[in-house]
């Protein structure tokens, strides 16, 4: 009998990029498949085994009544539930609807809005069920994903730092783009990407969501001093993690 821990991968409203990150672990995928039984991963396999599962990776946000029910069933079937990515952890880019009228948005896309069943908000998984760990990022970092899976297998807490992107810039020796006049969300943003944007000479745009202790008003002032209009700062916060508490302007 197969005694390996059983893995399931689930999709809600999302772009599929975070679950693709698992298949993008080209060098490690076969080792992962040895250590775990991939019991349910419809994007990769047509052999879908029934629960319960030891570890569920959940991608995507809740935007329909049906999905709000489905996530409860996923929780019931899962010993550990880990959300992967900005949609599952903060509602994703589709949570921009939370700041607008859903009726108007649907009418802007579909000629017959009456056929479309969708909720007025996009909410993270933790708003519906208990979550054991939230892995951030739009998309997640595949090295961090392997760390989370490895930590689960070893029965320990994942080593995923909650400090800001600034620390990652310092560690890789990137000169701060803000001192060169480029507005950057790095000081507010959760580490994990490896401080990619500043290394490519642009400001961070916050796709990993808020760091542990974000100071929004202080950075707003800094952007203002750099000549960025207030609307630009607001747009920067209202992107892929718009509904995250730490990105609200109080």
């Amino acid at each position: 009998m197969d005694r390996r821990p059983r893995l399931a991968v689930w999709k809600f409203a999302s772009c599929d990029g975070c679950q693709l990150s698992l298949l993008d672990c080209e060098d490690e995928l076969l080792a992962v498949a040895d250590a775990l039984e991939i019991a349910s991963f419809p994007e990769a396999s047509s052999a879908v085994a029934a629960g319960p599962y030891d570890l569920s990776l959940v991608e995507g946000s809740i935007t329909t009544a049906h999905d709000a029910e489905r996530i409860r069933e996923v929780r019931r079937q899962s010993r550990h539930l880990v959300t992967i990515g900005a949609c599952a952890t903060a509602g994703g880019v589709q949570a921009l609807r939370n700041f607008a009228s859903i009726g108007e948005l649907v009418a802007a896309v579909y000629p017959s809005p009456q056929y479309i069943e969708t909720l007025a908000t996009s909410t993270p998984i933790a708003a519906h069920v208990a979550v054991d760990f939230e892995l951030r990022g739009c998309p997640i970092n595949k090295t961090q994903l392997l760390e989370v899976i490895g930590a689960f297998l070893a029965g320990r807490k994942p080593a995923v730092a909650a400090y800001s992107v600034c620390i990652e810039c310092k560690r890789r020796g990137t000169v701060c783009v803000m001192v060169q006049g480029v507005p950057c969300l790095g000081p507010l943003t959760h580490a994990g990407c490896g401080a990619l944007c500043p290394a490519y000479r642009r400001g961070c745009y916050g796709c990993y969501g808020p760091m542990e202790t974000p100071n929004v008003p202080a950075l707003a002032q800094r952007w203002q001093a750099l000549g960025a209009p207030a609307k630009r700062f607001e747009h920067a916060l209202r992107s892929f993690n718009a509904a995250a508490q730490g990105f609200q302007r109080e």
Partner: protein
Amino acid sequence: MPTRTLRVDYLARVEGEGALELRIEDGRLVSTRLRIFEPPRLFEALLRGRACAEVPDIVARICGICPVAYQMSAVHAIERAFGHRVEGQLRSLRRLIYCGEWIGSHALHVAMLHAPDFLGYPDAIRMARDHGDILRNALALKKAGNELIRVLGGREIHPVNVRPGGFFRVPARAELAPIAQTLERARDLAVHLVRWVAGFPFPDFERDYEFVALRHPHEYPFNEGRLVSSAGLDIDIADFDREFEERQVPHSTALHAGIRSRGAYLVGPLARYALNFDRLPVSVKALAREAGLGPVCRNPFRSIIVRAIEIVYACEEALGLIAAYEPPEVAAVPLTPRAGIGFGCTEAPRGICWHRYEFDADGNVLTARIVPPTSQNQPSMEADLGAVASAALDQSDEVLRERCERSIRNHDPCISCSTHFLRLSVLRP
């Protein structure tokens, strides 16, 4: 007579979620529906009011499998609206990053999602127990494509380096040199992949598709060209609305597209290949012939060979672009926003991805429209399903279900771009 109901809870090995419905009465197939209920994410509405500079980052999130396609269509539309063209090495770098996406996306579909269908495995992991070297080589190929995107874009999913006018930062020649070595090996692996898939057993099945793809005067198309079809269509991408229509059907959250006068059409590798065979290098044409392909392939099951051929082409093209690369003086040409409408249409791995944006004088989005490849292929996928199912109505539910699933996977649908789970239900007395 009792009703026979056959259901597959979801079609696996596709990106996203949707459903299939077959209705059979008196031994006759009366309707086939590809039901798509991926929760709508309303991108076109969310883009309103956003600055043009934000558009490439936002539209990338439509699809984690082909973000480069969305970024490329968007930046071309923005530049066209503002009356600019990006030429020279910046243009080459755009082709280069697109090569990476084709290699990565096609390798994923050919080896990990599609090949198991021909060999009778539920997935690539189990296929690897008997064909370990093949899967390891395919993963190396996929990794090479991803590496190309990573160097040019910062990361393979939702790259950060693409902007209207060019890039934030362009690579030095020395950064591309190690990738050239990787790509030379990748090209050899891709040639092996072509030969391997060419030996699969293919059903004798052809459909009379109207193929639609871009066509460029000199190149196999990525970012530019006129929209042409196998029925003689030849238009500027700005005239898309004159010839094509999108309509909403109750059973799908993805809008269906059709040619106004004729209906269903097909985009993607089969269409690109048929309409641009003469643009492939001699060596790639020879390999296609060796693999048993003529200049046109109408058997959707054989699209796996065409995808493998396109991987070889993308490796060759990338190597040529890297060999000729000189870093441009500026990473991006400056753009001056103006009020207007811009169109972009590029060849995503799954076919043309058409964008239209209307901007105000400051370059903010007033309206956006995006037509992804999979929503364009919906009517053709339904027609394939009808043809495949009609020929197999006397088969057991299990066989029928398997053939229907395969007929959808032939087109590598990216349902997340438009759609959710494919659930197959067959109703028959």
